[in-house]
């Protein structure tokens, strides 16, 4: 049975048991129909031309892990930002781990989607926000149909959450192959602020396929800093669809660090609904061997006087493949938009490829919109310069790559996280940092 058939069959087997009498149930039914019609995307679709899913879909995934698995904290400590105090929402094989988590209901809600979907006190928020900005493409629909568990974060008006929140999904490898569909809902109310770190981590080399959907709402003057750390095993694949709806004067910044995984697809969508919004999308991709990382970004400028900044850097070695597709839509009403997009790439080997494409659709006349894309090798002159000072060619290369990639980190606001990512980059590149750059 194909994965598609298997998913549809399992849906109908369980649908009567999950929120049968809520409005969510109707959403699920619509969503599964949408997925049934569309199926998994294929290379025939323009948006998936360079990102083939067939190899991943071939695995015989367990789609409903039932067993509750445990992990010792000491075994996974390194995946947490343990140097500082954080809230933690942790899932093991898709199931919430109260043992590894640290949630709160004190003034802010940092808890579980399963609770929010079932308890009456969250009903209003769910009705207002759940599935309100997520689109009905096939993979998002599939996630909506099955959405049961994930992070539920609501930051009320004027609150600044003092600790970053970590959302971590572990896969233990207890299943031969595992399919996961976390669903996160994040609402940052007026003037509130939050910092969130998300990662997906497989603990063995058993195949894992994650189809995660995250909806983020920033109300008036709210702000969010969101960091995605994608450094999974080479047997794990991730499709991440994130949708942000920004109200007036809000500030949303998403950093995506893609170093690991077999196949990683980021669909990052910003909808600027109110005026004077600021959106920042940054990414560093460093991959090798047969890895593939695909960034599809969308910034939809709907209202006037908004800004967006995109800066993606990629370093590709081995036979790796990079895709960057940056779409900017400036609607007719969105006058005085300032949209900037930059995608710079370095190919280390002849077998690595990058497909980079800006896509601008501008319907307003008074806008500032710029984009640039570079694909190159390392600067020979700079390398020679460093060599004449006694620095080995390999080390010179590494330093140059490090300098190229790490300037994206300037906007990372959590110092411990910045140090962590800096080290990750240094490790990836093989530069021996006897110092802090």
């Amino acid at each position, binding site marked *: 049975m194909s994965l598609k058939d298997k998913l549809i069959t399992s849906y109908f087997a369980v649908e009567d048991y999950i929120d049968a009498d809520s409005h969510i149930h109707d959403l699920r039914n619509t969503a599964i129909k949408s997925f049934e019609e569309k199926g998994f995307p294929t290379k025939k679709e323009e948006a998936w031309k360079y990102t083939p899913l067939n190899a991943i879909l071939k695995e015989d995934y367990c789609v409903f892990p039932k067993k509750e698995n445990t992990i010792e904290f000491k075994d996974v400590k390194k995946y947490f930002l343990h140097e500082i105090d954080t809230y933690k929402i942790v899932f093991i094989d898709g199931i919430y781990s109260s043992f590894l988590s640290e949630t709160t209901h004190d003034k802010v809600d940092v808890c579980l989607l399963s609770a929010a979907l079932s308890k009456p006190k969250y009903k209003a928020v769910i009705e207002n926000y759940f599935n309100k900005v997520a689109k009905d493409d096939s993979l998002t629909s599939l996630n909506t149909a099955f959405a049961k568990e994930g992070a539920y974060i609501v930051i009320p008006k004027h609150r600044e959450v003092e600790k970053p929140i970590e959302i971590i999904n572990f896969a233990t490898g207890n299943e031969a192959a595992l399919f996961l569909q976390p669903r996160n809902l994040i609402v940052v109310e007026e003037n509130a602020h939050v910092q969130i770190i998300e990662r997906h981590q497989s603990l063995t080399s058993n195949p894992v396929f994650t189809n995660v959907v995250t909806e983020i709402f920033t109300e008036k003057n709210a702000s969010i800093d969101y960091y995605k750390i994608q450094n999974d095993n080479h047997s794990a694949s991730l499709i991440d669809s994130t949708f942000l709806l920004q109200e007036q004067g809000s500030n949303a910044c998403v950093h995506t660090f893609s170093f690991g995984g077999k196949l990683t697809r980021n669909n990052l969508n910003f909808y600027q609904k109110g005026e004077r919004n600021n959106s920042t999308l940054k990414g560093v991709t460093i991959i090798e061997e047969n890895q593939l990382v695909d960034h599809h970004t969308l910034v939809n400028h709907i209202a006037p006087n908004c800004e967006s900044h995109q800066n993606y850097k990629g370093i590709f070695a081995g036979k790796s493949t990079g895709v960057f597709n940056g779409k900017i839509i400036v609607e007719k009403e969105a006058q005085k938009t300032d949209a900037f997009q930059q995608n710079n790439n370095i190919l280390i080997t002849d077998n690595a490829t990058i497909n980079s494409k800006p896509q601008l659709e501008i319907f307003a006349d008074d806008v500032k919109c710029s984009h640039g894309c570079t694909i190159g090798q390392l*600067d*020979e*002159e*700079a390398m*020679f*310069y*460093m*060599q*004449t*000072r*006694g*620095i*080995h*060619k390999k*080390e010179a290369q590494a*330093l*140059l790559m*490090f*300098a*190229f990639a*790490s*300037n994206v980190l300037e906007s990372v606001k959590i110092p411990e996280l910045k140090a962590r990512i800096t080290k990750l980059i240094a490790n990836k590149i093989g530069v021996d940092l*006897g*110092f802090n*750059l």
Partner: protein
Amino acid sequence: MLQIKNLHAGIDNEEILKGINLEVKAGEIHAIMGPNGSGKSTLASVIAGKEEFEVTQGSISFEHEDIAALAPEERAHKGIFLSFQYPIEIPGVSVTNFIKTAINEGRKAKGMVDMPASEMLKMIREKAELLEMDRKFLSRSLNEGFSGGEKKRNEIFQMAMLEPKLAILDETDSGLDIDALRIVANGVNKLRNDKNAILVITHYQRLLDYIVPDFVHVLLDGKIVKSGTKELAYELEERGYDWIKEEVKIV
């Protein structure tokens, strides 16, 4: 120390250096002058080991060892230093971290352990002082946004840190204001001793008032066509290169 014999080098089958002979002994200062495009920087790059240029004939030896097959960093480890005519900007790497890396790579090549941090710091301070360099430059990205003169001063700072046996200074004077020229030249002179040597490439006699050469060579169309003492530099300043071109034609 440095011995160049009948050196021919070029790029893409285009010969730039057409038979250079030059010998530099320990303790000496040699100046190379010559019109734009005559091959001065090419000669400097070839000595430093730039792989882009192909050596088609002749030999370069350093301390009686043929260095033709050595990579630029290996030549650096042996004590050859090139101060660039156009220093390269390396964003994201601070001056301090760059020089630390350079020094420790050199020590590693000699089988030594890293220089202790305190010693490194002390040395950086001393050398920055010697060149009257503002400390704030040390934490900035290497050469990024530096003015022309600041870049040159930073080159000599690196030379002071690395203490090479042979320093090739490619137009270090261009871009320096009058005071900076004096400071940088004094810095270079303080680094001199009877065991090291300097090859200065310049267009102007002015620098040679500070860094006084034992020999002056004129490079013309890839060949050293005339050599003399420091008086030759005055003559060139006065008369330009046409008379030498004439002399060469007659020969």
